[in-house]
């Protein structure tokens, strides 16, 4: 939202502008928007990438003018709007995947070799659900399919063993 009226023009019109008050209000808005963006960033992290970067307007810390504060406020508002859209889209995709998972658990033979990860349904951790035949080729020929649940993550014991080996070196 660009500045609609330049200060010098306002003076010409006889209308006084409290620039300091405007700057304080813009800073208040920036603080509120930053909080919202931080919340969205935390909520989306690990599920989807959201646009959260807003470039600085100065290479060193300094007092900013109205136009610069407005630009930051507007950029933050744009990022929040994009981030919300990304979170909603991701939420929809996870809902669709959960429905798909329910169908796969119901009838694995309809999803041969299908694979849905925990990340696909918005759950933390590794692993997922895999549609696999019973007894390998025999199951494939007979149409015996099942869903295998994989934990996926390496065991903590294995990681500890790696650390011990590194320390020993």
């Amino acid at each position: 939202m660009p500045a609609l009226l330049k200060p010098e023009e306002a003076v010409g019109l006889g209308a006084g502008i409290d620039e300091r008050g405007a700057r304080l209000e813009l800073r208040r808005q920036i603080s509120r928007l930053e909080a919202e963006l931080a919340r969205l960033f935390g909520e989306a992290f690990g599920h989807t990438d959201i646009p959260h970067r807003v470039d600085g307007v100065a290479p060193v810390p300094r007092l900013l003018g109205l136009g610069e504060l407005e630009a930051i406020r507007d950029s933050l508002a744009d990022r929040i709007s994009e981030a919300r859209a990304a979170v909603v889209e991701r939420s929809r995709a996870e809902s669709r995947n959960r429905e798909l998972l329910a169908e796969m658990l119901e009838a694995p033979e309809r999803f041969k070799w299908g694979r849905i990860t925990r990340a696909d349904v918005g759950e933390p951790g590794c692993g997922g659900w895999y549609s696999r035949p019973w007894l390998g080729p025999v199951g494939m020929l007979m149409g015996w399919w099942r869903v295998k649940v994989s934990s996926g993550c390496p065991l903590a014991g294995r990681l500890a063993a790696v650390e011990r080996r590194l320390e020993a070196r």
Partner: protein
Amino acid sequence: MAGAAAERMGWVPAPRQGWVAPHIASEFPGVGVAWVEVDAKPGKSPDAVRHRLRDLSDRTYGSHAIRLRERPIPWAYRVFFRQIGLDPDRTRTPVEQLTLDRLHDGGFRSRGIPADALNIAIVETGVALRAFDADRLEGPLCIRDSAPGESLPGQAGEMAGGTLTIADERQPVGLLFGRTAAGFGVEPASRRIAVAAVQVKGVPQIAVEEALWMAAATLESV
């Protein structure tokens, strides 16, 4: 007033409160600088300090880093960075930078005294701290903008108009968040260290005093 509570509690040295240029204070209510001076020599950190860093590393996880910006004090510094034109995802706030370094390095690396003392206090409290050679400072510290034609010692050229600095009575000793002027940082020959905390709106006074106390106590224990 900074240090009042500390003085009542008998903590010596008590933090001293610097001043803020009136037009900056009116633009940024809640901004302040407080500092404490400690007799300490730079050098290798003792085992107790290194042990404390390891303990801190064990308590700092990736999830902690992700949620950091939602916590009140780190958030307050992020907001202030935005308000002074910096991008906090490029020029990181002190606590965010340390947390990212911890994730990158696998732990808080010991960088000797006084850096370790400051880092412990920053990570524990979230308050932005920095160290100066106290013997080089003249008079109280303050936050002010650069005067026309003024330059940061050790840096070629003039500072851009309105650059926010930490200064003593004579000259800027560093950017408000950023580099320290040449000759004012802690060097091997330093024997007295000034630990300064930059307070911004949203950072409670008690957190500032705790950060200064923690850093000073660590330095005094060396």
